[in-house]
């Protein structure tokens, strides 16, 4: 491994291509930390957005008109405004009103930039997920629902054990589109200084003046990340397909 790292040092000395994050341990650790934070941010947002989607779709099937209205309003708000403006609105707009805690000498807001990024991006993708899950749930026949009821399931149980598994398979392709989109959107967290991959790359090229090399690395890493995700999702989609539906 050391010789592999040293090869990049030689490359730099010979040709001037400065892939500093290979041979400088400090930069390497920084880069890897950024990479993991991107993964962490993506996974957290995916999990929360799916939870928001499932809960939202359940609330949309509620008998109370006001609940349905609120969920609808939430969906419409997040669907139709640019995610960057949402992020700014959360971080600067609402962040100004959140209380701060004493962190030894200075005051630190309870929700930091990472927290706001997770909240904002999860709500953004969650709005799409609610619609996606709702369309999937509507595709489950009424008779299946009635059969579950006849077997003594209550509304929540039928939702979890019968309707959701079927609906999930139906809406998986649409869900995948949205999740891939979400992972791409996590780069926006750069704008509020979340130290994810993009931000760390920026720090590295500011310190080492190797913009082209870092840019290329960044691009390749993101393409691989999204490419692997798309590939895995397609595989999963094929595996989860209901026989006789879709082609």
């Amino acid at each position, binding site marked *: 491994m050391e010789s592999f790292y040293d090869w990049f040092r030689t490359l730099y000395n010979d040709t001037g291509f400065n892939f500093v994050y290979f041979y400088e341990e400090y930069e390497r650790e920084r880069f890897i930390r950024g990479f993991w934070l991107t993964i962490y941010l993506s996974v957290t947002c995916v999990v929360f957005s799916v939870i928001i989607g499932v809960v939202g779709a359940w609330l949309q099937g509620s008998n109370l008109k006001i609940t349905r209205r609120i969920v609808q309003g939430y969906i419409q708000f997040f669907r*139709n405004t640019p995610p*960057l403006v949402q992020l700014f609105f959360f971080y600067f707009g609402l962040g100004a009103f959140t209380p701060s805690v004493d962190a030894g000498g200075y005051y630190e807001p309870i929700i930091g930039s990472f927290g706001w990024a997770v909240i904002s991006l999860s709500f953004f993708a969650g709005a799409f997920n609610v619609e996606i899950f709702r*369309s999937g749930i509507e595709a489950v026949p009424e008779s299946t629902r009635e059969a579950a009821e006849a077997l003594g399931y209550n509304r929540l149980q039928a939702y979890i054990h019968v309707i959701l598994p079927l609906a999930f398979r139906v*809406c998986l392709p649409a869900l995948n589109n949205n999740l891939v989109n979400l992972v791409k959107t996590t780069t*926006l967290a750069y704008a509020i200084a979340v130290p994810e991959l*993009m931000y760390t790359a920026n720090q590295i090229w500011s310190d080492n003046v190797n913009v082209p090399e870092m*840019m290329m690395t960044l691009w390749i890493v993101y*393409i691989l990340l999204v490419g692997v995700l798309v590939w895995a999702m397609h595989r999963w989609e094929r595996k*989860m397909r209901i026989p006789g539906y879709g082609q």
Partner: protein
Amino acid sequence: MIGLFRTPRPELRAIPGVTGPAQTDLPVLLPAAQLIGRKARQDRTNGFRLELKAWHGLFLFLLFLFFTGVAAAQVDNTLDKGVLATLWRWIPLIVGQGFVLNLIISFTAMALGTAAGVMLGLGQISLLPQVRGSSWFTTQLFRNSPWLVLLFCVMLLLPFEITIGDVIIRIPDWTKATIGFSLPIMANISELVRGAVQSIPSGQWEAAESLAFTRRQTLWQIILPQCVKRMIPPWMNWYAILTMATPICSIMGVQESVNLTQQALVSEDSRPELLAPFYLFLLVIFFCYCYPIARWTVSLERKFVVKL
């Protein structure tokens, strides 16, 4: 080729409890399920549809008024310190310079992206495997990378001025941003063109062949004219998506509406009560611009609905 590597019915193993082939043809799910799958595949080429309705704008406006009211209650509402008065002072800059720049960027990027995307899309249906393969690869490369990363690449790798002989041509920030935005648009339009050409029934190709049209003639005189009609609604949707995405170049310091709003807020001493009204005002402007486009897209889609 792919069929070779597949086990006979892999999907049977995927569902717990299902051990044999289906005993009946009765549908387990409504045909709606099929529609959802089809729509998801459509979304992959057409982008997420913007479904704007008039009450969205009204709601945003009311929210804006509400936050303005809250802000006004918090501060002493003297004449030039009031929230609306402050906003009023900045509107010429934010809209007249900032938002107009957003529009210029979106127009230019769309034009560039469409021109390049149509070429790339035609490359994807080329009969030459090399052209087809490389066009496909380029399309996938730019479709799968985040917009912000592409924008960064273009903004930082393009020189800020080029020297041809004695003439020094300066490339302003927003031009580079435009090129950065046109790349993902190019890839998506390319995919759109490929999808549209493939959606034309093969009977059209065969009929043209039987009438002794060459491939080029078939493409230009028969296939593409039909594609254009189908492509207009998703193309407009991509335009709306692009317009919504233009604020991200504010991160790189292009002085468009979001960037100018931030500057305006700073020069107003970053008064916290101004934040919500200013950003909501931005949302209202973007809504006012994108709403007619979204409605028009929907109506065109209805008009051009494929009749076979």
